[in-house]
């Protein structure tokens, strides 16, 4: 069950290019956490009122939770200034997480959509491959993924791997003989990439679980700040939208309207 608590940071690291890692200890939270769930991180500076939702990247054991994030604004900057031994206030685990279907899992991660796929790949059982898209050859978490299965890299500028997005890399692999037979896709990344994944799976008759991002205020399903459009009327909302924080962040790509 989710709880809000002050936890102790056990490790921090600068992964380069504005990407940071932070590990904290919270056994109760770690015990119930699942891949694809996230935690709300609160700023110590109370003038920043809203939580920063950050995906669980890895559950390294011993009640630890690992986050990997990009510094984009004041909140993540404050976070990057933390050191082991410092406290942070977190609430989690939140959201639904990725469903396991007992099928070959093809992971597609773009940018800071890459981190949540790591724990998924560790737990999913039948990892087929991870397609990881970066801006350039300044990669992160590559070695972690290589421990668990095949990795296909792409970059926006072509400085490493296939030039283009993870979809470009996936299409290239398929044309080179990579089989999507009996596979389920798991994706996390920027909006345009997820649209691409949705279109790809629809064209190929595949199932994809995609993790969406939206601006949040409560993170627990109460404020209706974070909705996405859905194809059908949602049971909770009574209208064609669902709460990313509570009904998601992971959705079957067929169920959401990304247009």
């Amino acid at each position: 069950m989710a709880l809000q608590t002050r936890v102790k940071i056990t490790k921090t690291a600068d992964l380069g290019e504005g990407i940071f890692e932070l590990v904290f200890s919270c056994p109760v939270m770690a015990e119930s956490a699942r891949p694809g769930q996230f935690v709300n991180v609160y700023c110590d500076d109370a003038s920043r009122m809203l939580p920063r939702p950050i995906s669980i990247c890895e559950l390294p054991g011993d009640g630890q939770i690992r986050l990997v994030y990009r510094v984009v604004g004041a909140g993540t900057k404050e976070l990057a200034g933390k050191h082991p031994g410092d406290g942070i206030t977190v609430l989690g685990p939140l959201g639904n997480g990725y469903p396991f279907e007992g099928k070959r899992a093809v992971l597609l991660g773009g940018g800071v959509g890459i981190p949540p796929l790591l724990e998924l790949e560790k737990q999913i059982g039948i990892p087929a491959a991870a397609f990881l898209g970066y801006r350039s050859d300044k990669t992160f978490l590559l070695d972690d993924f290589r421990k668990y299965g095949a990795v296909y890299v792409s970059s926006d500028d072509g400085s490493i791997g296939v030039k283009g997005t993870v979809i470009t890399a996936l299409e290239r692999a398929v044309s080179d003989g990579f089989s999507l037979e009996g596979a389920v896709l798991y994706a996390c990344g920027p909006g345009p990439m997820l649209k691409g994944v949705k279109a790809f799976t629809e064209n190929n008759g595949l199932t994809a679980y995609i993790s969406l991002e939206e601006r949040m205020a409560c993170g627990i399903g109460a404020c209706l700040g974070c909705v996405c459009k859905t194809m059908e009327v949602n049971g909770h909302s009574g209208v064609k939208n669902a709460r990313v924080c509570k009904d998601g962040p992971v959705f079957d790509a067929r169920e959401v309207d990304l247009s």
Partner: protein
Amino acid sequence: MSQVNTEVSIAGVTLKNPVTVASGTFGSGQEFSAFVDLNRLGAVTTKGVAVEPWAGNPTPRVAETPSGMLNAIGLQNPGIDTFLKRDVPFLRKFDTKIIVNVCGHSEDEYVECVRRLADADVDLLEINISCPNVKAGGITFGTVPEVAQRITRRCREAARQPVIMKLSPNVTSIAEMAKAVEAGGADGISLINTLTGMKINVRTRTFALANKTGGLSGPAIHPVAVRMVYEAAHAVKIPIIGMGGIATAEDALEMILAGATCVSVGTANFRDPAASVRVADGIREYLEQTHTADIKDLIGAVK
């Protein structure tokens, strides 16, 4: 420890303590009940509900601002049928009063919603007149005294429960609005709703909210809210539910001293899901520490 009385009464309804939550920041209590013991709140105020389901605005719907936030949820709600079937029975399991916030696109919609609530087991109605009036080109009902007075009268006539009118702060004279709804027969008023604001992202050169404008809430608006509660309290005799930026017991006490009978905790719930209960506990501690026997002695005590 001295015995203190934290009970207050709004239009004949007794709240065990003067703390409720601000509509829209707490859903119908279900999600927050994992973090807060709802039995410890004077009342739960629910998210605005209309006769039919409303889909709300496109996203982004929320944006952070210094010590506050902007929201343009667009009053998304599942409609009164679902609300009555699902949310009222859930809340009734707790020992707390239920305040139902009502919204509408037309005067008739407000009245219809109030009527549908007549047989419901709820304690108070809070009518949000900051909704856009579709027939009048989206101007909110709550900015024209005559319109506010008329809606109040019509809701009052249709309602079985006491009617609290929730006022918009986006007016020249809050005292005038308060008098208008009192003349319309309101049993109480609540204020303030959010202040209209705007935020622009200079990096992307776009509006932070898809709706362009949104309602500002949180500690940033607290002094404005205290001033308006004070002015309203001096203009009318009916009780006031004060809100706007309350995050601590001290903020709440300020509002009560300015003239509020009870208070709502809103945006603060987003930073601390247990903020409402902490405020209630803090008020009790204050009464004990200052040897104040009854919270009612503080209402409007600073003149």
